[in-house]
């Protein structure tokens, strides 16, 4: 039986925490999701990560999740409830949970929190994110080659650094291969609203965009693209492979599973520490989904080469010379952006004609 193992693992946790009373209990791991696991996008991948924990660590852990948790005081209630019911590790998987995570973490110093895409940390709060912008650079490269109208539509969610960074990265990569390219950005002000996301895609297509990128969580924009001829798009957060080979020609996949398993294992071993993780293509947290036949072979090859170079560190998605939108210099020739600036990015690069709403 695994009883001995469980006891040992439990004891390891207990030494760092509250004493032998917990020794026989499984480690309870909680997740709060912004949308439903069935969104086939962002939340789906987090739920895959949760399942990976169950698979890897089996009966040493017990996972719980609460879906459709708004980024408001509601999330505090959910996390408090989790902490009170014995969860020792809680993953909060959306940016605006940030301050609520900090509040709850203060009240429960024994509970460890993992906050996705945030930047506030404490002794019991870690942050983790993926370098989505590396993936954005690869699909931007493909988009720049593929657009015939030189207009790329971008369905954005909220004007936060993560989203702005993605727009900049995709734009720079598209511009590098197609100087004529223009970006049209629509802010949906939602992470998940299939009807609105479809309307946004439709609005962009009507205004001449033939390549659509999305930074929202549902597959609705894909369905909308499918209704029109000659429009392509990219899976976001998840592969969205059911729309391949057309309109989905490739995708950015967030693979959280290895990180989730590693962090949960650290809890079991008693080695958990507050950290800041930002992994990219190299570590496998960002994956590029299969590029379909709809992309010409030479573009597929050059996109793969770009992905490989981003992984090896030979190329950085933000390499100078780059000016800010207002024309002021940001990066000099050959200079690359530092993580601090990227993490707090709140400006467009030169060439993007839209304005960031405030």
């Amino acid at each position, binding site marked *: 039986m695994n009883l001995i193992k469980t006891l040992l693992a439990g004891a390891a946790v207990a030494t760092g925490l509250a004493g032998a009373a917990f020794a026989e209990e499984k480690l309870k791991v909680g997740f709060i999701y912004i949308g*439903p696991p069935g969104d086939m996008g962002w939340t789906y991948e987090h739920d895959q990560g949760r399942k990976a924990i169950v698979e890897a660590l089996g009966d040493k852990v017990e996972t719980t999740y609460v879906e459709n948790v708004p980024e408001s005081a509601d999330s505090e209630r959910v996390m408090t409830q989790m902490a009170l019911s014995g969860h020792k590790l809680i993953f909060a998987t959306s940016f605006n949970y940030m301050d609520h995570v900090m509040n709850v973490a203060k009240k429960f110093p024994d509970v460890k929190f993992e906050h996705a895409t945030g930047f506030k940390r404490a002794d019991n709060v870690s942050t983790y994110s993926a370098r989505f912008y590396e993936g954005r650079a690869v699909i931007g490269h493909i988009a720049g080659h593929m657009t015939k109208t030189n207009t790329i539509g971008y369905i954005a969610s909220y004007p936060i650094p993560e989203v702005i960074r993605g727009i900049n990265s995709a734009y720079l990569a598209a511009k590098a291969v197609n100087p004529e390219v223009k970006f049209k950005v629509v802010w949906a002000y939602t992470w998940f609203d299939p009807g609105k996301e479809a309307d946004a895609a439709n609005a962009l297509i*009507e205004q001449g965009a033939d390549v659509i990128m999305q930074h929202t969580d549902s597959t609705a924009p894909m369905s909308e693209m499918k209704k029109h001829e000659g429009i392509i798009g990219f899976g976001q957060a998840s592969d969205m492979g059911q729309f391949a080979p057309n309109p989905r020609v490739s995708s950015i996949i967030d693979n959280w599973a290895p990180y989730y398993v590693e962090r949960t294992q650290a809890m079991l071993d008693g080695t958990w520490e507050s950290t800041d993780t930002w992994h990219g293509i190299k570590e496998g947290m960002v994956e590029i989904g299969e590029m379909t036949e709809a992309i010409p072979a030479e573009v597929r090859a050059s996109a793969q080469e770009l992905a490989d170079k981003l992984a090896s560190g030979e190329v950085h998605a933000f390499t100078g010379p780059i000016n800010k939108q207002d024309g002021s210099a940001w990066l000099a020739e050959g200079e690359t952006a530092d993580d601090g600036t990227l993490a707090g990015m709140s400006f467009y690069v030169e060439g993007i004609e839209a304005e960031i709403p405030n």
Partner: protein
Amino acid sequence: MDLSSISPVTLIVSLMAASTPILLAALGELIVEKSGVLNLGVEGMMIIGAVCGFIAAVTTGSPWLGFLFGAICGAAVSMIFAVLTQYLMANQVATGLGLTMFGLGLASLLGHSYTGINPPLFSQIHIPVLSDLPVVGRIVFGHDPMIYFSLALTFAIWYFLTRTRGGLVLRAVGESHDAAHALGYKVIRIRMLAIAFGGACAGLGGAYLSLVRVPQWAEGMTAGAGWIALAIVVFASWKPGRAIIGAYLFGGVTVLQLNLQAAGLAISPAYLSMTPYLATIIVLVIMASDKKRQSLNAPASLGKTFFAST
């Protein structure tokens, strides 16, 4: 900013498609409220219609059967509300809210294995010559059949409420259920039928969402459309013709603000998003401002429990 990139014709076409689910749901709720019942479960009935319609369409391969099944299921869940409020005298507000939550949960359960599937295509009609006319062709003749159905339904409801005996009886029940009862009308039975009709319309609206507008099934995909439908009924001051205006205003503002953004106009989407709700509040203020405007008011028995003493 380049406003010329917004084509008015395509804007109107996509506005109509975006508004049809809320129009259908609002028309159903309008009949329900005209009979004196306040059913806040529109969102729940819509999402049940969305998931059931989707499942039926995927299983049978026919979008028409999807719509039919969506409407039937919408009506079926509305019967829970009907029995609770009409026979067991439950509070309508609480029961309606309960129906919404129940519907959202049940829909997630039913739709669990249907995420990521593409439904059979429901195409726009194409009438030779007419649909190819410039401007008029696309606005008048270039839609899918459900949009024409929603417009026909609006007219039919207007005709029913204002020109038929049945409509008069329905309104009498909504204005004063005691008087209607004294005249020998079956208040409960009429209200049951009205609630079923409301459920069917909400279900149809939901099915339109999952089969035409998005088209796919995703949990929570109605995303508040049912609540907007409720606001439209008030905005329309319980008149079907105004419900069209309300629905197209609500749907139109969403589409317009996305289009304006795509065209690069730097106006905060928040302002446009709040306009329909502001308009609703203004309508409410106008209604309350003057006794002479009583015809604009809500049915007098709206939300009151009817108990036949004799």
